[in-house]
């Protein structure tokens, strides 16, 4: 059974989206890539469920 939440789940999408863009402000392409990579790893650990990660990777890959 699918475990990844694919229904609306954030109380205020505009806010977190703005935070994401702000976090990248002033960074070079390499620095941004590095930040994204760290962010993914931090979130992987938070999720802690290989099945959710697998479903997320498949969804993102399209």
């Amino acid at each position, binding site marked *: 059974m699918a475990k990844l939440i694919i229904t609306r789940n954030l109380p205020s999408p505009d806010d977190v989206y703005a935070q994401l863009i702000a976090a990248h402000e002033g960074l070079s392409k390499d620095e941004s*890539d*590095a930040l994204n*990579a*760290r962010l*993914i*790893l*931090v979130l992987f*650990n938070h999720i802690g469920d290989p099945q959710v990660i697998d479903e997320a990777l498949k969804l993102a890959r399209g």
Partner: protein
Amino acid sequence: MNAPLVDRYTLAYRAYPYARVPDQDRDTPVRHPVVIVGGGPVGVALALDLGLKGVRALVLDDHEGIGMGSRAICFAKRPLEILDRLGCGDKVVEKGVVWNLGKVFHRDEKIYEFNLLPEEGHKYPAFINLQQPYFEKFVLDHLQALSERGLPVEIRGRNRVDAVEDKGDHVVLTVMTPDGAYTLEADWLVACDGAASPVRGMLGLGFEGEVFKDSFLIADVRMKADFPTERWFWFDPPSGAGASQLLHKQPDDVWRIDFQIGWDVDRAEELKEANVRRRVAQMIGEDVEFELVWSSIYTFQCRRMTRFHQGRVIFAGDAAHQVSPFGARGANSGLQDTDNLAWKLKLILDGKAGPRLLESYDIERIHGANENILNSTRSTDFITPKSEISRVFRDAVLHLAQHHDFARPFVNSGRLSVPCTYDGSPLNTPDALPGGPERTRPGSPCPDVPLDGGFLLNRLGDAKGARFQILSLDTDAPAQFSAHGVDCTVERLDTTGNDLLRERYLGAAPGAVYLIRPDQHVAARWEHWDERAVSEALGRAIGMEV
């Protein structure tokens, strides 16, 4: 064929000089039950194991002893336990170095250190560091001492196998010696002749896999200075000496240093003493005095044969599978091959094996080889990222690991070899112990536990034959049992006061009966003794159709 015998390497110990034997003067070739090609750690361990089981084994080696150079330096718990059963584990462990503290560096910064904190209640440590020639010598000394007292094993030095012909029910070998060629026959031929396996070549069998375009310069240096017994691993070292560096302690004040130096290197230039010394000095410090003991350059591949036996020819160790050095999976997995094979060959030669037993060697050890190849390939990909994005993630891990513990398990500088659980093996009977621990499910190697002032593993398995074992815990079992012509020894234990025994073998179950193979792997387990079920499981575990 008929090429002269040449030395491919220098010897550390000359152990079995060439001597002419009567087989060379016979008109008709002499038949041996088992001939082993190669006198390296795998071939010698197999010969010892077979000899102890009463199987006559002949080892043919094109050299006269043990090769020079430290090579494999890390020996894991499982192979040490195997050697213990064969009677020479303690010597190896006593000489070896045990370390617990590791440090990980990225560029010029130490990002973290870790303590291995080994699990309690095992006779042997998780692994030891020891130069390969010592390891080989302890096993060989033990074998030769036993041979003088009747162990049916013979090693012939300067005997090079030049041709192999499988006749269906035996193999014919052409063997070259300093006195010319002679012919031998073998019921079974086991090729333990290394990654470049000439026997594999003679049979035209494939060896497919991934080639890694990288080379490593290894230097063994002796330092009298007060250098700590720790493992240091560098990603992108500041000395610019390559993609990674590893510093590891060995006995006799010797440290192993591995420099990953890239693919397009001038080997002769890199191996010049002045150049090796320069790299070493950059790493340990310009002011540290050291003596260069040995150095070499190697490259590696991750590959294996499609099947580990072909007719009457069986392959073991590097001849069957080759992995990257990260995680110490070469010699360690080779010893698990011999451990898996010896009792099966004994039953086959005794006419007691079912038709599927030899096939199970392929299935179980290919499972092991796949696990090793997977793990060492992942380590290699982490240490040497293959794409830009792979490097971005690798560096992100190292960056996070400096301050955050959660990221440290992602850091992969080699995952140490742990014994293979033969999940899905046709020899296993489905688990019938509700609440039983995961780690002792059918297919697992039995974990050690302290017992009556000694250790459980010293009472399990069978080095001297191919008997199975019934282990009963807090429940009844008969004093004797045999089925399908195979005897079982019975070990009845009371777990009172032994929490580790309960934790590792009972879990939530009130009692258990285990059926254990001669190689200490679990074949089946139940809550209670059930003669029919045990008999059926035993049949399955010796390869019968049940």
